[in-house]
């Protein structure tokens, strides 16, 4: 019993994911919610890498690579949407953007 076990990594991942979910629910700023989504993606990535290392199979790390690509695409499009919302409403508060039309 030397070194951290697989379950430690899974527990850490679950904690990080839960913090991300709580952040998405309680934050009101769009950019802060966006960063909490990134946190959740990273928690899932940690699970992928932990299982990949545990089962000695490279597939998990390949999918971490793909998840990172999706996160980069999401960042580009999401920040574009955020800029557009700010330009139209002069605010980043999600409560003020609860309807799609102005």
């Amino acid at each position, binding site marked *: 019993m030397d070194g951290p076990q697989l379950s430690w990594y899974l527990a850490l991942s679950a904690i990080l994911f839960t913090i991300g979910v709580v*952040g998405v629910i309680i934050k*009101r700023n769009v950019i802060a919610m966006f960063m909490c989504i990134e946190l959740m993606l990273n928690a899932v990535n940690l699970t992928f890498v932990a299982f990949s290392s545990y089962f000695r199979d490279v597939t998990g790390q390949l999918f971490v690579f793909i998840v990172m690509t999706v996160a980069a695409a999401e960042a580009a499009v999401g920040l574009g949407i955020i800029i557009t919302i700010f330009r139209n409403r002069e605010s980043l508060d999600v409560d003020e953007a609860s309807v799609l039309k102005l």
Partner: protein
Amino acid sequence: MITSLLFILFAGLAIGCALAVVAQRHPLYSAISLIGVFISLSCLYLMLSAPFIAAVQVIVYAGAIMVLVVFVIMLLNVEAEERRRPRLGYLVPVAVLFAAVLMGEVAFVLKSVPVPAGQPPGPADVGLTASIGVGLFTKYLLPFEITSILLLMALVGAMTLARRTPILSAAGRLVTGSKLPAPAAAVEAETQLAAEERK
């Protein structure tokens, strides 16, 4: 033993930074805390013998994505969000009930499912760049190509979303006459100036 201590150090750092992401009221402080989460997760990937993913984590997440986020925060001149009282009402006991049910489920699964001890045998060079590249270009070539198409779509979408010339006016109606307001106005002013000169 030393790896356990390192795990506890980096896991504590990640959890602390994640809590700071949620607790901070200014998005810039949240962003810097999020970079802390990414760095500590990268160290955990190194401990899991995945050096390629650790490097990509630092380069792509802490480098590219967070630079983009910080750039947008600076660009939009975001102020700290004000605290407001949440209107939850009867949802609080419901949430507590469902959380208790979920915890019970997790405890049941942890009790009932046996966890195999020790690692199964396999190749030792799992996390290295060469093995990842071989997997990415042979068995998983199709997801790789789809990813490239996705990146192209994101590029076009981001440019369409963030461009300056408005297609929609402020009232939400389509601007039919003048697709490009600024150059049209400039041309109009120029013709007016020329007419005045002729007079």
